[in-house]
């Protein structure tokens, strides 16, 4: 094959990695349509959107950089409380600006704690991330003068979005707001993972030794993605506060971090849509089971986790092969048809 067509093939292949495929477009069109077509379900859809954004943030570090975190709720909770406090004390009353501020605050926290996850093994990271989330929860608990303690943050009042859209009690504005934020942040995340930076993250996850030998400053990249992911989680937490006008200690709860792992396991990691799909399935499942046994829902979650692990994540993926084949079209990581053989 001549040089020109090889370069052409290369550019084509690389461009194909980030091309929007039909299923993706369909996904977002369906999502958009729910704003108008499912008005009665906007409350649970808002929860799904927030959970999806939160899961997306974990996917950035777990699926793309290989960092196992058992305390990602730390950033979610931090963003939630910052947003709440900004509203309560009237520091920033416009919700979108407050959202940005909360996200930045969470990013700062992420940056400061990122150095903790650089050292040590997977087990160390698990314990350190768990520890950080617990520290924050404890701080929030003990400083009730600021956070309201165990009763939660009282008196959160959310002003109209952009000064125009009032948050109604049916949750219509809230849902449209969350969906829009989710979409924009998703686009940004999509850009990031398809960039050279994103590619270097995947290489670090795959083989950190080789990554360093290629000249990648591994620690710096990990700090960067951890910081970004913390910001995303903080935004999700802030959305929760803004749409429910309340923030309580359970934003830091271990359950939240654990459930999040389950969401990503169900949906799959490393292709960005896993968090969103997992969030949908998880919430629907939770809704259904909670209606049956409101108090003992953690039991079934636990059972599900045990079963998934015992059966093996790979085997589950093979059972759902037909669906996977379909979703692989969503996953631009799947191998393409090979370049035709070079003629002698």
């Amino acid at each position, binding site marked *: 094959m001549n040089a020109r067509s090889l370069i052409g093939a290369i550019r084509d292949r690389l461009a194909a990695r980030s091309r929007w495929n039909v299923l993706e477009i369909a996904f977002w069109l369906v999502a958009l349509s729910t704003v108008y077509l499912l008005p009665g379900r906007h409350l649970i859809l808002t929860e799904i959107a927030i959970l999806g954004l939160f899961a997306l943030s974990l996917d950035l570090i*777990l699926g793309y950089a290989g960092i*196992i975190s*058992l305390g990602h709720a730390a950033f979610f909770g931090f963003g939630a409380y910052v947003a709440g406090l900004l509203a309560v004390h009237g520091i920033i009353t416009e919700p979108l600006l407050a959202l940005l501020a909360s996200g930045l605050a969470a990013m700062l926290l992420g940056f400061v704690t990122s*150095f*903790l996850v650089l*050292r*040590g*093994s*997977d*087990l*160390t990271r*698990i*314990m*350190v991330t*768990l*520890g*950080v989330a*617990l*520290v924050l929860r*404890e*701080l929030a608990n*003990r*400083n009730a003068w600021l956070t309201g303690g165990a009763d939660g943050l009282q008196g959160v009042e959310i002003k109209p979005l952009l000064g125009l859209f009032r948050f109604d009690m049916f949750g219509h504005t809230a849902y449209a707001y969350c969906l829009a934020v989710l979409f924009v942040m998703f686009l940004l995340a999509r850009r990031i993972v398809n960039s050279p930076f994103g590619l270097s993250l995947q290489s670090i996850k795959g083989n950190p030794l080789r990554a360093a030998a290629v000249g990648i400053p591994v620690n710096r990249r990990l700090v960067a993605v951890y910081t970004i992911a913390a910001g995303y989680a903080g935004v999700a937490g802030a959305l929760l506060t803004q749409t429910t006008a309340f923030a309580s200690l359970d934003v830091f709860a*271990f359950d939240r971090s*654990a459930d999040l*792992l*389950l969401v990503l*396991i169900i949906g799959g990691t490393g292709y960005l849509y896993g968090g969103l799909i997992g969030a949908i399935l998880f919430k629907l499942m939770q809704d259904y089971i909670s209606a049956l046994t409101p*108090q*003992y*829902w*953690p*039991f079934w*979650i*636990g*059972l*599900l*986790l*045990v079963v*998934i*692990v*015992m059966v*093996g*994540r790979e085997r589950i993926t093979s059972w759902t092969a037909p669906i996977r084949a379909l979703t692989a079209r969503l996953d631009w990581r799947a191998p393409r048809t090979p370049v035709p053989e070079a003629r002698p």
Partner: protein
Amino acid sequence: MLTILFDGIAYGMLLFVLACGLAVTLGLMNFVNLAHGAFAMAGGYCLVVLVNRLGFPFFAALPLAFLFSAVLGFVLERTLYVHVYRKPHLDQVLFTIGLVFMSVAGVDYVMGSGQVFARLPSWLEGQINVFGVGLGRYRLLIIVICGLLTIGLQLILSRTRFGSRLRASVDDARVARGLGINVSGVFALTFAFGSGLAGLGGALGVEILGLDPTFPLKYMIYFLIVVTVGGTSSITGPFLASLLLGIGDVAGKYYVPTLGAFVIYTIMIVVLIWRPQGLFARGVAR
């Protein structure tokens, strides 16, 4: 101040008995069992049922609590855990979290969600006067029992054949197998024993730590801290770490109540930054 020290030591030794099974499991199979607290909880509830409902004497119920958790540990290890050893760490974490959730919800269903108390024999209540210092009788008992257990453990490890097989397996499982040591058998027994100790600790701890269905979740981090700070390659490491944490927690909550448990979390994070393999572990982290 001495009372604080005394309480802290009692608390620390209790933590040690609770956590040492986890330390050995982690060191032996590089497997972090977040559900370790569930076995402690099982022992605690066993004691409560035996003493409160069935009228068993306190001291007869203690070894039964140990046995209950040990058997439970053995059964679960042979049926479930053994399939998970080879899996990636993330899967192991998810698995044990799943077990925790199941145990918490399960106990909530069977025993109710309120805190339970054990009826102590009357001579264990109150204080005795030692050199003018009032020492809680129950805490004194804990120190005695846990102290004896610690010495016993150290003797088993260093003087018995099982102990040397265990130490060899922790040091290097592959080589140990090559020497003909039945590593998985050693592990099953150790897991059972560690779970039993957790159960005993849970039973002893009903009075001091409080017992309700959320126990495994509440105390998970404490066990992890003991193991993290103490390392997994000896008994003395977790022992010293438990004492450090016990005293630190009690003193912290007394002197600086607004920070409370913050103190020990901070200790853990600081230690992990400085020495990822633990304060007292020797050699390279796995």
